[in-house]
């Protein structure tokens, strides 16, 4: 039977488990979070470890910020083998220390760097593509459906940028939302709450004004839809208001 080690769906718990396995010299067949359903050849192993709250500090002092950020971004990704990749990166970090991320000839390192960059890129794109709508009570409300779990990165960005506004970022794919009240950010589970945003009176006017600007600013003699698609992939169009119309006409032809 393949042994699948189970962690508690958070980053600290994952690192605690990984360091524990390394210490015991156990090579896991895989590591998965507690929602994982094993197949017939797999056995779930739960070690019931207490979270080691110091582990982030430990990683930071031992291997540096860049290392910690890289494996955290891998953890946020949708990659199927992300836990195993982090495990092997940590295993090699004990051997090579701080220079481990330079060892691009190791598969786990080149994969970790690639995935972390992919997550960082998606977060960066959404810092631009996210669209807020103003609700009746002046709250700004934005929906996202990202491939990777980037809501926390986005929240930190908007906490600085829109510090004096109330806002909600809603990840409709993962059923979570970040709520900011001009002071703190709160993560909520939206499976249990229905959100029916009611728009402010002005909202439609500004959306219309923006779509007008968007139409006008493109130079017709230079039209290049392929180039646009490269930079702004279709999977984001649904929530980008200036693309909504085109998105709907496209879907009709499917």
């Amino acid at each position, binding site marked *: 039977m393949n042994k699948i080690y189970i962690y508690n769906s958070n980053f600290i718990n994952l690192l605690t488990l990984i360091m524990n396995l390394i210490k015991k010299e156990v090579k896991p067949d895989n590591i998965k979070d507690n929602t994982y359903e094993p197949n017939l050849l797999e056995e779930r192993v739960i070690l019931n470890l207490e979270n080691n709250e110091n582990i982030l500090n430990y990683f930071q002092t031992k291997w540096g910020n860049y290392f910690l950020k890289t494996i955290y971004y891998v953890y946020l990704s949708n990659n199927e083998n992300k836990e195993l990749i982090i495990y092997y990166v940590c295993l090699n970090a004990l051997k090579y220390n701080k220079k481990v991320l330079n060892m691009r000839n190791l598969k786990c390192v080149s994969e970790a760097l690639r995935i972390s960059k992919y997550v960082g890129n998606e977060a960066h794109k959404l810092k631009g593509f996210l669209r807020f709508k103003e609700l009746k009570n002046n709250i700004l409300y934005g929906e996202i459906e990202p491939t990777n779990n980037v809501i926390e990165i986005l929240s930190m960005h908007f906490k600085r940028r829109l510090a004096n506004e109330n806002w909600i970022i809603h990840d409709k794919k993962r059923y979570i939302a970040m709520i900011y009240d001009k002071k703190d950010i709160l993560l909520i589970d939206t499976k249990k709450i229905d959100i029916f945003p009611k728009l402010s009176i002005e909202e439609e006017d500004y959306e219309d004004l923006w779509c007008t600007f968007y139409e006008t600013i493109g130079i017709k003699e230079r039209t290049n839809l392929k180039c646009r698609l490269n*930079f702004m992939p279709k999977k984001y169009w649904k929530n980008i208001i200036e693309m909504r119309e085109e998105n709907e006409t496209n879907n009709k032809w499917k």
Partner: protein
Amino acid sequence: MNLKEKLIILSDSAKYDASCSSSGSKRANKNGMGNASYSGICHSFASDGRCISLLKILLTNCCIFDCKYCLNRKSNNIKRAIFTPEEICNITINFYKRNYIEGLFLSSGIIKSPDYTMNLLIETISLLRNKYKFNGYIHAKAIPGSSEILIKKLGNLVDRLSTNIELPTENSLKLLAPNKNSNNINKILNYISTNHNKQFAPAGSSTQMIIGASSDTDLDIMTKSSNMYQQHHLKRVFYSAYIPINKDKLLPTLKTPPLKRENRLYQADWLLRYYGFKVENLLDKDNPNFNLLIDPKADYALRHLEEFPIEINEANYYKLLKVPGIGVTSAKRIINSRKYFKITYKDLKKMGVVLKRAKYFITCNHQYFISPELFKKDFIESNLVLEDKPKTNQNIYQMSLFNE
């Protein structure tokens, strides 16, 4: 005239300015709205594939100048409009908080006099900064011929301050922009580069040249760019393919804008700034224009085959950068990785090297990857040209077969 009509007129006449970057400033949010992102953020992409980062508008398209190539020239009979400072602030703030934009790009036609126009720009932007407490990115155009004190005032309010030199040579400027004077433009760029600091235009300056409206060669253009980078420490020179909007006997008649040429100039511009190339490496009096079939770096490599192949595990940074298919990122990765292990051909892909281009010009552990007798200009050139051809050509061909 309502706000929407104004926005159409004043964004339509602003769209020919190529600059859209919102990078280079670290402005923080001081108890207001917005901050700058040092790497810049693109918020959308227009139907022409260009990034939309800033609300790009003119304060007014009224203009006392009569530059031949410009939509807003005095002699054109078009609808004119002017924004009030409050209107600009209102649109900017409402677009910004909905995360449509990274900030404002404000330029203007020249109304009454350069100083009068500058004062309007200053009034608008100080309203935005002080009353609305807006700390997002602002790029403003300085008006040539305005007084130094106004340039100083405007520079203290914005992240980037720039002005366009429009044409690479004095002669073509005189011919096509008779009211503009290159001294005035240089004076502004000079003032910005000597005074640029954390408070004054922290994101520096840039400029733009129109490509294909005059008879200037690529050599003229690149020489001008190179001088501008050295003298004025510009962040960017933008190249804007001329789009025939006006009919004038002094202007060329073009069916389509020279987009490929513009692309080659941008590639060469990158080579000057990041790859250690000089203009004389790329162009000379006998070859004053870029090869449209092949990019400037590959063109250089093919003309200097004696410098190749280079050894991946030994060559220095600038030698690596000369290889087609190796860019700044992959060259740095190679240099860095070499300290820890010997790089094999297989590792190169993981480092982001484009092997289908690079393979002709490198050895890895002294091994060459194609048969050595094929290390000839004609062979490599024909392969590279075909690599560069967009794949859509094949589709068009297939479709026409289908139609028959």
